[in-house]
């Protein structure tokens, strides 16, 4: 039986060394795959704050992922076309600078999550799952039919956005950016879970009556958690837009929401490194099975089913043979 911490450290080291080695061996595509893992894991870390810590089963996190992506895409497209974003009451120019794009993505995701959360958190259980789905569908259909930014066709970013001192078009440089964000999000999530806020949030998931009885309002806790969660997922969306140099409504589709949840469950709900394990496994499978058969999603479905039915602790749970506690 392995302890969880060494497994986590091994996972992170693996994520770090594989692309570095691949880059040395001139296999840039493996670096791209690792970047995708880091970004998806970051999105899932975001969702995990709501879902794992707060028990808020959001089936609409694709909305935030997509909003972050569109934030990056819209700013970049304005910068590419030299058209200001708005001219009244003051002029706002587009930008290709990640240091500006990220705060915008965080802010946009935060505002959207605050609004959606404020309404959705009035419900609970299945209703919460469904109303978050409904809001995500609303954003999806809006993006599909709104012509200004490409609608269904999506919005290309011809040149990856830039970061001072890095050549983001080099796969390894961009991987470094994504990796640092993944680490930052994960560390933040760990700190959060041990903080006053995290204690109250997890308490509310386990026993909401008890939390009320000690004078803590679960609605405000959850709203803040949902907002933070949406912000992190939106940031991951902005990175994903840059990875693909492209944004489209498919980032907002309900399947995307489902996939982010799948990362978490594959890795193990509520585990800090579950999102990484889940995203890595998912992408590994996509490429391993995708090469074997056109019908790889059938195999993915079978595997997911087996994990849900029989390996409740997720991948990390299987490796460490231990159910998760708190």
């Amino acid at each position, binding site marked *: 039986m392995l302890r969880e911490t060494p497994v986590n450290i091994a996972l992170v080291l693996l994520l770090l060394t594989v692309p570095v080695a691949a880059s040395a061996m001139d296999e840039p595509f493996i670096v791209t795959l690792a970047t995708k893992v880091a970004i998806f894991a970051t999105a899932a870390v975001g969702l995990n704050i709501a879902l794992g810590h707060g028990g808020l089963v959001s089936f609409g996190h694709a909305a935030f992922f997509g909003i972050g992506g569109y934030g990056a895409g819209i700013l970049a497209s304005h910068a590419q076309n030299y058209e200001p974003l708005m001219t009244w009451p003051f002029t706002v120019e587009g930008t290709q600078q990640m240091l500006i794009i990220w705060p915008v993505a965080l802010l946009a995701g935060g505002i959207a999550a605050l609004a959606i959360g404020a309404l959705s958190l009035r419900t609970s259980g299945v209703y919460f799952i469904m109303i978050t789905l409904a809001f995500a569908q609303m954003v999806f259909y809006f993006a*599909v039919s709104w012509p200004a930014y*490409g*609608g269904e066709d999506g919005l*290309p970013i011809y040149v990856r956005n830039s970061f001072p001192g890095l050549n983001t078009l080099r796969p390894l440089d961009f991987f470094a950016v994504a990796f640092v964000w993944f680490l930052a999000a994960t560390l933040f999530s760990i700190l959060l879970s041990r903080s006053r806020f995290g204690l109250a949030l997890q308490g509310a998931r386990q026993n909401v009556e008890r939390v009320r009885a000690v004078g803590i309002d679960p609605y405000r806790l959850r709203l803040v958690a949902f907002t933070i969660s949406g912000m992190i997922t939106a940031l991951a969306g902005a990175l994903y837009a840059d990875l693909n*140099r492209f944004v489209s409504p*498919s980032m907002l589709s309900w399947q995307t929401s489902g996939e982010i949840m799948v990362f978490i469950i594959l890795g193990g709900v509520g585990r800090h490194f579950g999102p990484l394990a889940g995203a890595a496994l998912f992408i590994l499978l996509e490429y391993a099975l995708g090469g074997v058969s*056109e019908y790889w999603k059938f195999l993915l479905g079978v595997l997911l089913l087996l994990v849900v039915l029989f390996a409740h602790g997720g991948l990390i749970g299987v490796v460490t043979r231990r159910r998760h506690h708190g």
Partner: protein
Amino acid sequence: MNLITKSLAALAVLGMTSAAFAEPVKVGMITTLSGGGASLGIDARDGFMLAIKQSGNKDVDVVIEDDQRKPDVAVQIADKMIQSDKVDILTGIIWSNLAMAVVPAAVAQGKFYLSVNAAPSQLAGKGCNAHYFSVSYQNDNLHEAAGAYATDAGYKNTFILAPNYPAGKDSLTGFKRFYKGELAGEVYTQLGQTDYAAEIAQIRASGADSVFFFLPGGMGIAFMKQYAQSGVDIPLIGPAFSFDQGILQAVGDAALGVKNTANWSKDIDNAANKAFVEGFQAEYDRLPSIYASYGYDTANLMLSALAKASPSDADAFQKALEAADFNSVRGKFSFASNHHPIQDIYVREVVKEGDILTNKIVGTAMTDRSNAYVDDCKM
């Protein structure tokens, strides 16, 4: 050049190709092989591979990957093909939005892209590129032809409908470019919509004398079946996509008699087309679709250029492609200055041959049609 000499030339080209290459060429095909739009990608792939097989050329190595009709997946496959498989030429994308995601970055990295289907206006006008060629058409072409046909047929009051997404809007714009009559109505439906009762009711009430619709894939099947049941008998016009071999059988008799515009039909009478249609049926045991014909032409164009130059010599290879020195199953074929075809566009009618629904050419809608964006392209 008459038909006989042309087909002799074709044989000569086929005969010499295998000798002409020094080193193998890697081609990456990104296309939709799973999910809703898979039938289109499968046909394009099969047409492409048939041409390679018929050529007997062993030096072309085609890597095929499924984009699942998702732009982000397509981009990643393109990255993989360029970075890892080190392909020289990319092809295969069916959908315009995927093409917009992949093509600009791929050509910016110096790769050639040959389109088997999608040809959005952005890539024909300001965004054109020396390394990008559309073998199929420019997206507006078949819609323009439908507009021209509606005018020729004397329709004065057409109801037009398309899904509410960029290709849908381009389609209606294209139709209106050559249509001279009035519009009885202009409706945008939801993308992926499956029930058209509300729109059919509007058509019935509009007093239109004809209906133009662009509803690709399952949307078109649903629309036509429902239209046939509605008791509305205003004539339908559409681009070939909704009347393609792959979906006609699913539509059934509801499609009989409908006029559609296409730049290919299996009854175009030339040797290349005969070889294609027969070869395709022999190889895959089904009738080829229009996407298969695009795939077939794309491969033959590529082979003809490879016979003259290697993609590593980009300028020479580009010149060889521009020459379009191959026998298109469409007959006449040349490239406009923005690397989109100049070709005839026909009017077809859906007919029944035995038990099988298929198309028959009944006229020509446009002759030597290029596209509306040539002047915007500064190459």
